[in-house]
């Protein structure tokens, strides 16, 4: 790319960074496959400062919703609007999604993270510094040169999370990121997420773990069969949930969270 081109690109990135991604507005969102409405008319408004937790039973559509928010799926009807950004792919560039089943490249842990870093215009020195830093933060230093795919599931999840964090996205979409982690790692990951949030990163997290939702959540969105059945501040959600489904969710009777 020519010098002028590079400058232009940097300016474009700079101007798009000015456009706020919030509030995130989801209007009458529908996603169907065949006749099945898997996401069945969701309306949501999500603000920047809060950490949002999405809960709900298996098959409720939590992962689908994250994909729709991230623009990986095209809605059948309705829309997802990230603040003032006109196109969802522009918004996506400023986000990172950690998938429920992370896809790691067939390379070492270090090479996986380097692959992500190379997508940004960092200098070589900057890149290596960030790499070293994130390996340490995610306690992956000792695993850095292992092939990523032989790692245990929990370790792979940590790599996927590190890959998302290392790009310093403005929004982190996390699909059950601590599901197979031991308690120490869970605590470490939660600290990482809280630290990212303090630096201004918006957190949208899907979890079945009540404790985690309490520890991390400012607000909770409860999904069931593709619909939002409750959207309330975390305190209210956990104390005086008026929706019977949410109530039983809290007591863990109706389904296992």
């Amino acid at each position, binding site marked *: 790319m020519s010098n002028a081109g590079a400058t232009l690109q940097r300016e474009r990135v700079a101007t798009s960074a000015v456009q706020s991604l919030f509030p995130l507005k989801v209007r009458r969102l529908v996603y169907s496959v065949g006749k099945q409405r898997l996401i069945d008319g969701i309306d949501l408004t999500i603000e920047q400062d809060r950490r949002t937790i999405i809960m709900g039973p298996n098959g409720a559509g939590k992962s689908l919703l994250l994909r729709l928010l991230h623009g990986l799926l095209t809605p059948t009807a309705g829309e997802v609007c990230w603040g003032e950004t006109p196109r969802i792919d522009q918004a*996506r560039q400023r986000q*990172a*999604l950690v*998938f429920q089943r992370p896809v790691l490249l067939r390379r070492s842990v270090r090479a996986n993270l380097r692959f992500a870093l190379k*997508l940004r215009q960092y200098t070589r020195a900057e890149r290596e510094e960030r790499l070293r830093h994130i390996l340490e933060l995610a306690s992956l230093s000792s695993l850095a040169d292992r*092939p990523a*795919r032989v790692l245990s599931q929990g370790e792979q999840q940590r790599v996927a999370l590190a890959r998302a964090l290392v790009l310093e996205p403005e929004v982190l979409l996390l699909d059950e990121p601590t599901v197979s982690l031991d308690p120490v790692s869970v605590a470490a990951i939660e600290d990482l997420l809280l630290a990212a949030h303090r630096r201004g990163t918006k957190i949208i997290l899907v979890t079945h773990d009540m404790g985690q939702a309490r520890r991390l959540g400012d607000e909770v969105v409860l999904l069931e069969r593709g619909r939002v059945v409750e959207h309330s501040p975390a305190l209210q959600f956990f104390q005086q949930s008026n929706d019977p489904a949410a109530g039983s969710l809290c007591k863990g009777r109706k389904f296992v969270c």
Partner: protein
Amino acid sequence: MQDFGQAFALALQLIVSADPALSEIIFLSLSVSLSAVAIASVIGLGIGATVGIVRFPGRGALIVFLNALMGLPPVVVGLLVYMALSHAGPLGWLHLLYTPTAMIIAQTVLVTPIIASLSRQVIEDFHSEYREQFVSLGVPLKTAVAALVWDARYSLLTVALAGLGRAVAEVGAVIIVGGNIKHVTRVMTTAIALETSKGDLALALALGLILILIALSVNATVSLLRLSASSRAYV
């Protein structure tokens, strides 16, 4: 006709003594087929990666067509390349008929669809696994293709070796466009055909043994590669 046992002993002797006539044939054979596979890999991988990743109208039909071309009979390929290279043909002015280059062309035509078809499948599988993650990360197309090819390298090498196996063992195409001229276009398979019909079983058998050895080592290489790759979960 010679006694089989005697022929076998003579064949071993030819191999062990690295008989110059034998070596010449083996060398030519390998250089023709390796060149053909190298060229076919570049073209075939290009086609395979494009068809595997990019969606365009007529893609399904093209895949069926490529798969059908995998079964091209070598003699038909030989005939077509012969017609193209003969004096009256469109490429007659190149004067390539009955040269090693003609054989490379024929084998390239034969092997390219195989590599294209098989690598299309490999790349498509990898792509469907990586697609969402790449879109999420915002990986540009060029980087994505390079990453897919690199991550699929072991499978793709297997594909190339499959092509090599087909090229080395093929006789129909090279005998038509090469003509089996001694010291010029005589390769293992054409030599075996000729020597057998002449009744010189020793040379034919020696070449046959070498051919089997090559096939075996190609397959062993493939297995070893896959084994080492899968121990690192790279397959």
